[in-house]
């Protein structure tokens, strides 16, 4: 009898802790989702067009006015153009960066050559300089060639140093058994074949991770794009730079709800991508953490 009682009380205790945990989780979820809820609500507000609402959260009048303004009122702030700019940049950056990262990682992970260690050390040291520092000089270089204030220059900046982000991908390649390569080499395949036909097909998670991160990067990147677009007309902005412009003192009066709408439109594709590919992202992040 006593045993049963003990068992029950233990079970009861577990239930209480579980309830507490549920309460905490619900609070956390609300705290985390509240700002986005607010964002979506604001984007559907259409009565006092634009001004930042401080009086209420739920729109008094619902409607798509903000979205309409965002996509039609393009004379000063051309959101559709920014969106297109960012999309073009993201797609190109994704392709080039993925190729560069995979190539660098493969070479550093699977091949042995004299310069391998020095190269890795060099990139480690380069990574310790504030990225901003080289940016100033890159800006002058590109300005000299007339490449600032246009998309090509920005793409070049994003892509050029992407080799330095090889760590996570190399960590993944390191876990693939070397014997696979050796067997293939004995069978007469060359290195290129090993890379393209054996290693790559085995590396689907990390390829998707690389694609995902390099696609998302340009959408949220503010520092470099604001530098590169400094002084240019607003048509060549990216969404990050443009949306911030909407919140400047001169614009915020008329554009706040449009900003919210813009933020929602920007977030949708990435959120969808993310929800589908979450698994790969986790694999990439944890893989990288394990490898250091």
């Amino acid at each position, binding site marked *: 009898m006593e045993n049963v009682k003990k068992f029950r009380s233990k079970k009861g205790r577990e239930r209480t802790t579980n309830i507490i945990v549920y309460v905490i*989780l619900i609070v956390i979820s609300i705290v985390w989702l509240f700002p986005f809820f607010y964002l979506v609500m604001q984007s559907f507000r259409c009565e006092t067009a634009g001004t930042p609402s401080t009086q209420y*959260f739920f729109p008094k009048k619902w409607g798509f006015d903000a979205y309409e303004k965002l996509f039609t009122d393009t004379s000063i702030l051309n959101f559709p153009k920014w969106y297109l700019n960012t999309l073009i940049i993201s797609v190109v950056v994704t392709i080039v960066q993925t190729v560069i990262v995979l190539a660098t990682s493969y070479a550093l992970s699977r091949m042995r050559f004299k310069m391998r260690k020095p190269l890795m050390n060099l990139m480690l040291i380069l990574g310790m300089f504030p990225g901003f520092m080289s940016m*100033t000089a890159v800006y002058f*270089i590109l300005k000299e060639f007339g490449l600032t204030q246009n998309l090509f220059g920005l793409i070049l900046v994003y892509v050029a140093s992407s080799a330095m982000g090889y760590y996570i991908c190399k960590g993944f390649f390191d876990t693939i058994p070397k014997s696979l390569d050796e067997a293939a080499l004995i069978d007469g395949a060359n290195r*290129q074949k090993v890379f393209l036909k054996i290693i790559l097909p085995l590396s689907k998670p990390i390829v998707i991770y690389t694609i995902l991160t390099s696609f998302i990067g340009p959408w949220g990147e503010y*520092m470099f794009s604001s530098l590169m677009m400094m002084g240019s007309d607003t048509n060549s902005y990216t969404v*990050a730079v443009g*949306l911030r412009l909407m919140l400047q003192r001169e614009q915020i009066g008329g554009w706040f709800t449009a900003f919210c709408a813009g933020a929602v439109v920007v977030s949708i594709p990435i959120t969808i991508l*993310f929800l589908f590919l979450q698994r790969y992202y986790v694999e990439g992040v944890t893989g*990288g953490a394990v490898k250091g």
Partner: protein
Amino acid sequence: MADLAYLTKSPLEKFVYNFLNFFKRLPLAILHFFQKLPGRIWKGLKKFGGIFVTIYRAAARGDWKTRMSFGVMGFGQLARKQWLRGLLYLVLEVAFIFYMIFFGWKYLAQMGSLGRIAELSWDSPDGTTQYVRIDNSLLILLYSFLTIFVIAAVIYAWYQNIKGNLYAQELYEAKQHLATAKDDIRSYADEQYHKTLLAGPMLGVTVFTILPLVFMVFIAFTNFDNAHYPPSRLFGWSGFDNFVMLFGGGANITSAKFAYTFGQVLLWTVIWAFFATFTNYILGMVVALLINKKGIKLKKLWRTCLVMTIAVPQFVSLLLMSQMLADEGAFNFLLGKIGIHIPFLTDATWARVSIIVVNIWIGIPYTMLMVSGILMNIPADLYESARIDGAGPVKMYFKITLPYVLHVTTPYLITSFIGNLNNFNVIFLLSGGGPNSLDYQFAGKTDLLITWLYKLTFQQGSYGIASVISIMMFIITAAVSLIVYNRSGSVKNEEEFM
């Protein structure tokens, strides 16, 4: 501490012990580094000497084909029917000569002065002022470095050409097969595949990272600022003036202000990085543990709620937060209902606290995701055997979970610390570095070194000083990383629970 005493400590104590040990061992490590230095330099010199030995051998032993290659690169290869290599060397040499004559030497010659006359202007007959630009210090400096890089690369190629010739000659004398153009091409997909793979990436890194960095390091020794801004004005070498200025050694009041600002901003940067890293880490782990607790349902839903914040671009969440935290923003409206007004971003202390809190909100999902992944990897039989041995959940947490997670994530912890030292987005988009302070030189109370740099360069044009600050930042990051990477070896050996 003896190994045994170390092993009996709890994981947290171990962590603290190791952490403190970093700093205790640091002076010794630095000393050790300098002790090893002469040996390394000697080794390097010996290697360097080897280059001359090869050149001498090529000159002394080489046949006429090899010797001709000293002047005409690729001659020997062409003569030995290695068409591809020879042609490439020859083209390189010709291109280099043209480059130097028509472009390189002009800039290199002016490197010492960085230009004499910026522009000449005169009044033209129609009443307007005409001008012609002559020297541009910026371009002179930039192209001089480019030229030095090119010269170094060509010298290296020249050495490879000689070495290759000597090798080919020796092979020929030993009557062995010489690599033909076809062999060369094939080897770039095989033994030399790394060269094919790395050529493009490394070119990008060289042009867009190394060259600019070298350039910026040298900018620290010039007086490049708004008053000396090319192309209408020149700047020149100024030695260590900028360093003196930043550390308060200058005679004027600005220098003292710079020194004060630098100290304060650096202090806040370190405090920020510390809190940002550890709050995120600890709280993220707690959230992950809650979600992964046995008996909790809808795990995927909770996780997705948090992951949403990763998926929404960071700048959106940050801009939104900055609006909500504004004096007239949503939070103050809510608080206003109970008669409170909090200057979230306009009071220095509040701004600092709000930024750290918002950063927790941004950062927890990342830690949560990562820790969840790790938790799933912990072998279940560890818990099983602990349970059989009579361990309770708390004990299992401190003896299994925590050590495991700490072990795996220490490198992550350190990289995220370094990342936070340079966290531009959070500060710039949230508070813009504000509230501004009159005691600071062009900085606000929440400015990190990196946002201060941004303001100094692109708003104030003080490139010289900014680049000194960059160098300081490099030294700090490098010091932290050095300690860490020396340590992480011992992290990896610490596999007592595996």
